[in-house]
């Protein structure tokens, strides 16, 4: 809630007056009377708390916009209309969320598989060539920003190569339409994004495994005569996984709200790209909408992580 309040103050700090905001609706050549008229109709002169209340109300019950030349109803959940395109924000968000979800979930699968398995093998063979190589790559992975690895991967795997992995730009095809092409287009962004996360997950898993494999209960598992594989996975990894589940939930929630850098680098029409474009164009309802959306995912991710904690670690359960 605090964030929404702040968002209504920020445009004022940035020097936006009701007139300037109104001009985005009626064009720059209108007379100042017209500005005032529109600004008043859209409630830009209302006190902040009232504007905020209207905005919130619109999300839950919808809102009627009176442009002077007829009333338009914006059904709930209504995030208002884009200044520039005059289209409602909500359908845009839904549309974009599909892209972002495809990107985030696909990458998440890759990074969990690779990160955790690399971490486990590294921990079991501490000091080996594999461990050193994997940890060097992981260090590079956490240090290199997406816009670097992304561009490098584009240069190496996409531009002017016979095996073009993705046609950058608006080539995104939804999963429902053509799953093969959907996956093909997303491979590079997936791998690039997953690389960043896999690196930190590998380090996290390795550290966790090094600790749990020295625990007494792992020795007990061995004393039972369990095969080494069961000892490592069922007893060692199971215990090391708790902090990883926590971080995974938060990471995924954050990404679902928009993977800004990845989407910008690969020109994927997701929520992150939408947010950047909206900020660039100072399209206020869009910015508000996408922020609300991202916040929603983060809050939900936090709740899910808290619930999962009880599932993963029985000691946390109440009663």
């Amino acid at each position, binding site marked *: 809630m605090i964030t929404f309040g702040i968002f209504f103050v920020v445009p004022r700090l940035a020097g936006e007056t009701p007139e300037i905001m109104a001009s985005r609706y009626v064009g720059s050549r209108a007379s100042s009377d017209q500005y005032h008229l529109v600004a008043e109709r859209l409630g830009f002169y209302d006190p902040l708390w009232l504007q905020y209340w209207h905005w919130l109300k619109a999300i839950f019950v919808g809102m009627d916009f009176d442009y002077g030349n007829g009333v338009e109803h914006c059904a709930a959940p209504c995030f208002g209309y884009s200044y520039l395109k005059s289209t409602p924000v909500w359908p845009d968000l839904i549309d974009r969320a599909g892209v972002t979800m495809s990107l985030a979930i696909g990458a998440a699968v890759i990074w969990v598989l690779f990160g955790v398995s690399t971490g486990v093998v590294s921990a079991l063979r501490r000091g080996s060539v594999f461990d050193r190589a994997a940890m060097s790559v992981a260090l590079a992975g956490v240090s290199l920003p997406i816009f670097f690895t992304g561009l490098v991967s584009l240069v190496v795997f996409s531009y002017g190569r016979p095996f073009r992995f993705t046609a950058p730009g608006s080539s995104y095809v939804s999963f429902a339409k053509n799953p093969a092409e959907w996956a093909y287009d997303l491979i590079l962004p997936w791998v690039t994004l997953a690389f960043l996360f896999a690196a930190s997950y590998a380090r996290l898993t390795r550290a966790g495994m090094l600790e749990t494999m020295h*625990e*007494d*209960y792992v*020795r*007990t*598992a*061995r*004393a*039972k*005569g*369990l*095969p*080494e594989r069961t000892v490592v996975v069922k*007893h060692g990894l*199971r*215990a090391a996984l708790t902090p990883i589940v926590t971080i995974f939930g938060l990471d995924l929630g954050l990404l679902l709200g928009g993977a800004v850098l990845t989407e910008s680098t690969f020109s994927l029409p997701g929520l992150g790209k939408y947010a950047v474009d909206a900020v660039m164009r100072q399209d206020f309802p869009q910015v508000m909408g996408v922020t609300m959306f991202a916040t929603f995912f983060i809050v939900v991710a936090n709740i899910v992580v808290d619930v999962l904690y009880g599932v*993963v*670690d*029985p*000691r946390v359960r109440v009663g």
Partner: protein
Amino acid sequence: MPGARAIPTQAGAKPSSFLELRDLRIHFPTDDGVVKAVDQLSFTLERGRTLGVVGESGSGKSVTSLGILGLHNRRNAQVSGEIWLDGMEIVGASPEEVRRLRGKKMAMIFQDPLSAMHPFYTVGAQIIEAYRVHNPVSKAVARKHAIDMLGRVGIPQPDRRVDDYPHQFSGGMRQRAMIAMALSCDPELLIADEPTTALDVTVQAQILDLMRDLQQEFGSALIIITHDLGVVAELADDIVVMYGGKAVEYSSAKDIFERPQHPYTWGLLGSMPRLDRTRTDRLIPIPGTPPSLITLPPGCAFHPRCAYADRTGGRSQTEVPELVGAAAGHGVRCHLSEQERREIFETEIRSKLESA
């Protein structure tokens, strides 16, 4: 019953006793030098008998037990010697062969049951797992067995407690559950590593009673590892006293308590608090601290702390004593002659140890 123990036979030959260690050495090379955690250790144990392994922290008693189970750190340990379990040699066996024996033929009870049980699985699940590794039965059958085992170690309402997590058990209950887990496959050799150290004194007695009853019921061989002489007095038939990775005295429990011969054993016995003396005389501590296993004192490892070291004419500082007399039923690793030890014991020690 001195002399009841079989004497270690020739290297390489199949022994007649159930468990036999011959010249077992477990060394860990480190950057600072070789840690001789276990050195030249030999003993035998029959089914239905109990061996107590006694010593201070760092005397190598825990490593011995881990070594028998093949649970020592394989990557950096140098193991030599022989361990014969029921006619099978374990030191030279493949890890896979030893794994198959673990839990089934030989099982272990650990010191701290809270950290030794997995916090994320129910007590029942952990017993079921132990049972099913070695017995091809359905989960339902294994569960019945787990409930049965929990009942036998004295856990009330075992059919309900079976689904509890370790943190929902009290310390004594956890140790009972640990014992149930170790006994689930009916092992012939049971090793208990300080089984009562982490428990309340009142619970300690219960657990010791339980272990004695179960041993009689199951007829297994039992090794009790402890620093608490009270525990071995309660349970053991034979006792190995370890110091600096080596056995310094090896005899029947009766002999160790009635006619101890090694100065270190005298020290251990004197360290047991006694209420029948005046306050200042109740405890007779051993001076000094246990030696580092990397830089053991030359000669007899105990000489810097031994009150009688100067009676050996300097040999204790230069020459490592042998464990002498094991064949006769009472082995002692000391430079003093048997005659001298007897004399010292009768004139100086006995009066301090025995109650009025």
